[in-house]
């Protein structure tokens, strides 16, 4: 298991994605899965950067674990910001004309659709959001 702690700001995104990509390359992740995981990491981390700490700055941590037997990678996002369960929100409107659409919630929706599992827990003052993806 590897862990990275950063400031919860959009400027940290590059560092977080590089950290994840390095592990994905080591385990021989498929190109398609890597892109889906990169997108998931961006969407979830940017969400934390934008909304977790409305009062100002805070930290976030990202943990990655791999399971070679199941070809699975598990990534957990952790912050001490306001409790927020992205899974509790309704899916966005993805049908109908452009004029009736908005992209609010679209990022989380993409993550839900592309990951094999996604779960949320609020524990000891921390938001813990976990995604699991088969990387073959």
């Amino acid at each position, binding site marked *: 298991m590897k862990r990275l702690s950063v400031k919860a700001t*959009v400027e940290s*995104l*590059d560092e977080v994605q590089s950290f994840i990509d390095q592990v994905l390359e080591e385990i021989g992740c498929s*190109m*398609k899965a890597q*892109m889906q995981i*990169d*997108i998931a990491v*961006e*969407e979830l981390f*940017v969400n934390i950067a934008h909304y977790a700490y409305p009062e100002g700055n805070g930290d976030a941590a990202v943990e990655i674990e791999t399971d070679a037997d199941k070809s699975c990678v598990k990534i957990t996002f952790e912050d001490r910001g306001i409790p927020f369960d992205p899974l509790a929100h309704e899916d966005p409107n*993805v*049908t109908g*004309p*452009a*004029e009736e*659409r*908005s*992209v609010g919630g*679209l*990022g989380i*929706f*993409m993550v839900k*659709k*592309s990951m094999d599992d996604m779960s949320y827990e609020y524990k000891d003052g921390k938001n813990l959001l976990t995604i699991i993806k088969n990387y073959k």
Partner: protein
Amino acid sequence: MLNITKNANGEALKIILEGRLDTTTAPQLEAELGKVLPGVTDLKFDLEKLEYISSAGLRVLLSTQKTMNKQGKMVVSNASAEVKEIFDVTGFSDILTIE
């Protein structure tokens, strides 16, 4: 990292996107479009070299489609299988004209 190449021909504009359209680069495209879109009636995005798109990039495409619905047409061409799948999952395939 995103490279934006523009080929203008009267009221027609072709924009070639190369690299990543994400949280970091989407504002760059949005600012560029704000400058060049007025007066354009025929807009084409060439996505052959676009490697990655997240919801921040989709947001710009959606707002551009809304603008072009009022002033002309917009076409998205040469998207990779991965980018096309993202358009499918998010329902963007129904609102974009994909070639």
